[in-house]
Every structure is written in structure tokens, then in C-alpha cells.
């Protein structure tokens, strides 16, 4: 199979399936999973960081004045929108 042939062979892989690069999963842009995307109303954001602590991915970053979404990884679960105390986040259809 073509796709299999391009993967590394046993002579070049570290033994025992050990993964020597921490966080190598970052190459998986799980943002492709989502059906809805969170949109921030920056005026309502108080930077309380509740969405940040609850995000399972994480796909929310701490910005200077407000949070920022990492759309590369956001799976669109909507926990942030549910938990936001000022309703600053709304889930809209992914285009």
C-alpha cells in the first residue's frame, strides 16, 4: 500500500515504540472535527478564564485582554459557551 510504504521502517524507529518527542500529537489539527465553532464577543469577555480551565483540548489561549480560540484544535464541544458567565461565547455553524 502506498501510504504504508512512506512510513518509517523498523530500522529507524526508536525501539519499543517509545515516543521521544513530547507533545507530538500537536500535528493533529483536531479542529477539522467540529461542526460548530465558538465565536467570542470580545466586549462581553471579562477574561475570567473559566472557559480556559474547562476546555478539554485545550483550544483556548490566554490573551492580553480576552481569551483567544485556537481553531486548529477546537472540536466545537461548546463547553466554553455553556460555562461562560457573561454569555460572551456563541456557537455558530462551521462553514
Amino acid at each position, binding site marked *: 500500500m502506498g501510504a504504508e510504504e512512506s512510513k518509517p521502517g523498523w530500522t529507524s524507529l526508536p*525501539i*519499543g515504540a517509545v515516543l521521544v518527542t513530547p507533545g507530538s500529537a500537536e500535528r493533529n489539527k483536531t479542529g477539522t472535527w467540529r461542526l460548530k465553532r465558538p465565536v467570542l464577543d470580545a466586549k462581553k469577555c471579562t477574561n475570567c478564564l473559566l472557559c480556559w480551565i474547562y476546555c478539554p483540548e485545550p483550544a483556548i489561549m490566554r490573551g492580553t485582554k480576552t481569551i483567544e480560540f485556537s481553531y486548529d484544535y477546537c472540536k466545537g464541544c461548546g463547553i466554553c459557551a455553556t460555562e461562560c458567565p457573561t454569555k460572551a461565547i456563541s456557537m455558530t455553524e462551521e462553514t
Partner: protein
Amino acid sequence: MARVISQKIVGMNGNEAVAFAAKQARVDVVAAYPITPQTIMVERFSDYVANGEVDTQFICVESEHSALSACVGSSLAGSRVFTATSSQGLALMHEVLYLASGLRTPIVMAVANRALSAPINIHNDHSDMMGSRDCGWIQIYAENAQEAYDWTLQAFKIAEDHDVLLPMTVNLDGFTISHAMEGVTVLEDGEVSKLLGKRQPKYGLDPDNPMTFGALTLPDYYSEFKRQQVDAMDKAPPVIEAVADEFKKVSGRQYSDVSCFNVEDAEAVVICMGSIAGTARTVAARLRKQGKRVGVMKVWQYRPFPTRRIAELLSKVKCVGVIDRAVSFGAPYGALCSDIASTKVQTGIQTKVFNVICGLGGRDVKPADIEQVFEKALRCAGGEPLDMPTSLLGVRQ
């Protein structure tokens, strides 16, 4: 100028000899659970710990499954690790055996071979280790307490070699070796430390260099890691040989993959493993005095199986009687004979092969029994057709 190596003879049984070797190897962690006939190994080591004779962290785990699991944890964290078990304990840790070899942890484990239940039996045969022979561990069979001591020491060096990095069992017959007192010639602590050095892990659990162990591999990757284990097994024999040569220099005792007694000009040979080889050699020596051309091949290194070497050694032998100490139910041969028969198929040697299974559950195998095997082998060597390729010896009708 030759180095003066001093050794002394200490009266020890097989279990004590192994525990002593683990002590001299300065293992960092031992996690073990008692089971007859291994118990004395664990108890003797506990004495060393309680008397401050070792710096080892000794974990009295609550089962054999946890014993080997804890060893895997310790080994991944960088420690030199030892454990021991028998029979049901080995069976209980079955999945952990594959885990240890798959994760490439150089754990050394002594197995005091004992029959597997049911029915429950605490005496010696090889069904325990044979039940796990495909687990990816290097497997050695010792004939006596001396060999158990010597192989346990060598095992650390073999397993920890970066070309190998496989766990290793040293098998010793339960009660027959484990509980029998011998005069064991032991090295001085300093010589052992020089021989083994400190373990140098290749990969490990270390916050300064974070790694992930035990990831899930899907069909697109699993095979490559199994291929690596095959490679490690292929690389083990030269490492075992090199360590044996180093060991010879300090002890005067030479080890190898097999040990031959009068095989070069034999026409009939008995192949066996473990303590039964002693009985076989005694019988062979007696038959030689009667002019019969017989020999004994004792296999030390069971995995990786020394196919090429055995084929070379048997090239002129007309017939071999292979003794197995366990039944492989439903199979044409017992485990060892199966490997000898495969050797024949792969290499094209013409030696006739038959299998005798005996000594199950500690049933005593007497010289007269072994003599029967030699006589059959000689008859086959003389041209008589093989009537029963596999038979059970010494079982009442």
C-alpha cells in the same frame, strides 16, 4: 601477566545461589511474590535487605502479576531489576511477560520450574516456562546451582546490552536444583561489580527528558516493533558469547549456547535441558564403556534457539532422542523436540528424531529410564524404523 582471581566455595542450594548472584549484581529493585519452590530466593533476599547487606528497594507485592509489573516500572525508571517465580506465578504474569519484552526492559527473572495445575503439583517439570516460551524473553536452562549462579550474573550483562535490551529468564529445576545443596564457587563482590558495571539505560522515565512509553500502535506500526524484537533476538547470541568469554576470564568456567558430552563421534545422542542432563551424562559414560557410541547435548540457550549450531553438531549423528519435561497437548512433539525437528527441516540434516516426554510433576527419571532412551536411539541409528515418534516415559497404564 594473568590476573589473580580469587573465588571461594560456599554451600548453597540453587535458590540461595541465585539470590546471592542478585545481591552481588547490586540490583536496585526487587519486586517478588513467594511461590513454592522459589520461596527461598525471596526469603534469602529479604534477609539481605533486613541486615543491610544490600541497598535494594524490596517490594513485597501482592501477586506475581504485580511483581513483574512493578519490575517493568522500575526498569523504565532506570533501575537494574530482578524477580523470581514458578509455575502458577509465571502463568499469572503471562501478559506482563509480553509487556516486558515489548517495552524492551532488561529484567532478569529466575524461574524455579514447577508443573502447572491442574492437578496442582509443586514439583519440577518445564510446563511453566514452556507455556510462555514465545513471550520474547531470552531463556536459559541451568543444570545445577553453579550454573544458576553463573547464568544469573551473566544475564544482567546480556539483557542490558544495547544491542539486546530484552528481559531474560534463568530456569532452574524446582526442588531438584532449587533446594539441593551444592558447593558453589562464587566470585568476589568486586569482581562481579567490575564485570557487570552499572546499568546504562537507553530510554527512561525522566522529567528532564520526557518520553511516552506504551503508546497504542495500530496495524500500520505494530509489525515494525515486533521486527525489532526479532532483530534483538538475532543479536543476542554473539552478545551471550562475548559475555561468556568475559565470564570465563574471571571464573574459569566457560558457557555457551549448548554443552556437548561425547557428541563429536556419537551415532546416538540424547538432547535435554536442565538437571536431567546430569543423569544423562552418567548413563552415557557407562554406555561408552560398553563401546556404544552415545553422547549428550545439553541445551543452555533455549531462546534464541541455536538452530545453526545444533545442526552443525548433529551433522554426523544418526539419531537423537529429545527429552521434553512438559507435554505440548495436541502437538506432534513436545516443545524442545519441536524445535529440533524444525532445525532438521530448516537445515536439511538427516538425523532421525524422536521425542520422549518424562519427569512430569516431579516424577523421578532414573538412569534406567534414560538408558531406554539411548537404546532406542541406538536401534534407530542402526536402521530400525521409528515406531513412536513421541512417547510418554514412566507413566503407569
